[in-house]
């Protein structure tokens, strides 16, 4: 027997496991009977091409959305009477798992392409100009609710920290394990705010205390809560849901 030539692990032995590992997008495993009936002649193992085609289309959609984005177009604002009550909690875990931090201990770290890399306390952020909005939060699932947020416009903050405004992305990391990122034009939109208050009171834990992003020109999952750090970068940062297969731009 030519044992030497036989690899320690044959590809087809671990093929199933490799697939599981590789399935961040789950689009292929998501092929249902309806799709299979379309793909006559295709078995599941050849559907990587479908997966790749869908990913390519999502990248195309992102480019279309970026082109469609008008930096001066404001999301519609509503009167206080339109605010949705009770406001719905939403995260990738149930509400009882919400993490909290001591407000006086919390700091916002700012990294990468910025001139002033320092940590910001809540007191520091409250000293900056504040902006309030009552806008519609639209979830990728389709439901929506109107809320009232206020805080520091991100474009003011980015200029204050000397961010490279020609960089492609602003990325956020959260202390609950979530992360997301947005394009620079959307980051500079006047309604994109580092939110400190919800309904005119400091954010409470379910709504992302002590700091969240509010960006009414994007879907809800692009509004990270529980922010711990942000970075200005040219390296695509992805995001928790984006890496699972939702389109990255997700503009409204």
């Amino acid at each position: 027997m030519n044992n030497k030539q036989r690899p320690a692990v044959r590809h087809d032995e671990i093929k199933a496991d490799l697939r599981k590992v590789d399935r961040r997008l789950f689009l292929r495993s998501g092929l249902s009977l309806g799709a299979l009936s379309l793909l006559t002649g295709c078995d599941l193992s050849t559907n990587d091409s479908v997966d790749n085609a869908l990913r390519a289309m999502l990248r195309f959609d992102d480019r279309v959305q970026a082109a469609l984005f008008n930096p001066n177009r404001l999301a519609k604002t509503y009167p206080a009477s339109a605010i949705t009550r009770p406001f719905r909690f939403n995260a990738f875990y149930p509400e009882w798992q919400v993490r909290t931090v001591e407000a006086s201990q919390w700091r916002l770290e700012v990294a990468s392409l910025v001139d002033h890399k320092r940590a910001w306390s809540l007191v520091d952020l409250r000293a900056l100009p504040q902006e309030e909005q009552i806008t519609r939060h639209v979830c990728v699932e389709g439901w929506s609710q109107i809320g009232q947020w206020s805080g520091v416009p991100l474009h003011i903050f980015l200029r204050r920290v000397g961010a490279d405004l020609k960089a492609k992305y602003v990325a956020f990391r959260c202390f609950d394990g979530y992360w997301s990122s947005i394009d620079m034009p959307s980051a500079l939109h006047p309604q994109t705010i580092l939110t400190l208050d919800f309904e005119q009171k400091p954010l409470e834990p379910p709504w992302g205390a002590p700091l969240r992003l509010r960006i009414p020109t994007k879907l809800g999952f692009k509004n990270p809560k529980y922010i711990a750090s942000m970075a200005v970068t040219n390296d695509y940062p992805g995001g928790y849901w984006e890496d699972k297969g939702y389109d990255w731009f997700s503009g409204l």
Partner: protein
Amino acid sequence: MERTPEMQAKPRLAHAFIVRVMHWIGAFAIFCMILSGWQIYNAAPILPFLFPQWMTLGGWLAGGIAWHLSAMWLLVADGVAYLIYGIVSGHFRRDFLPIGRRAVGHDLAQALRLRLEHRLGHYNAVQRLLYVGVIVVIILTVLTGASIWKPVQLYWLTDLFGGYDFARRVHFVLMSLIVSFLLVHLSLVALFPRTLVSMLFGLSRDSNAGVSQ
């Protein structure tokens, strides 16, 4: 180019080759749009029911959205090509018009008694109404879809359809109309299988035609 006698004698196809190609591309795109749309609906149903998982496309919400945002380009490209062709070639004017109210009433009564003739290449008044109707409904479905995809950038479109939440419901109702059309359309194809052969491979028009021309 002058038409020679031979060309005139050659029987015209019920469906031009280009129409058949556009029909099947459109059919595939609509099929993907409906099934992936049901997947998206299931994430936040507006009525007290869900579509069975096996009837949906995409496996989960992100997959459904990926299919929906992909097939929509195919549908729009195919639809725009078809509309341009239909207007420029005279296909709409020749085959879909006029749609008289009296003719619709007469043909509908005949159809319900299963007495209506189904001749290849000639649309009776009920068919004309349904085909023009479904084309309009598909256009409105695409527009309501765009209005809930881009309620900020295309706010005027969203406002036109009554705001984000209402537009979602309009989009759903329009989908239901397309599905209703498909049920009728596919039932009639089952009753007249020759129409399927004709749309696939191209059969010539039935004779004793031209009454309406």
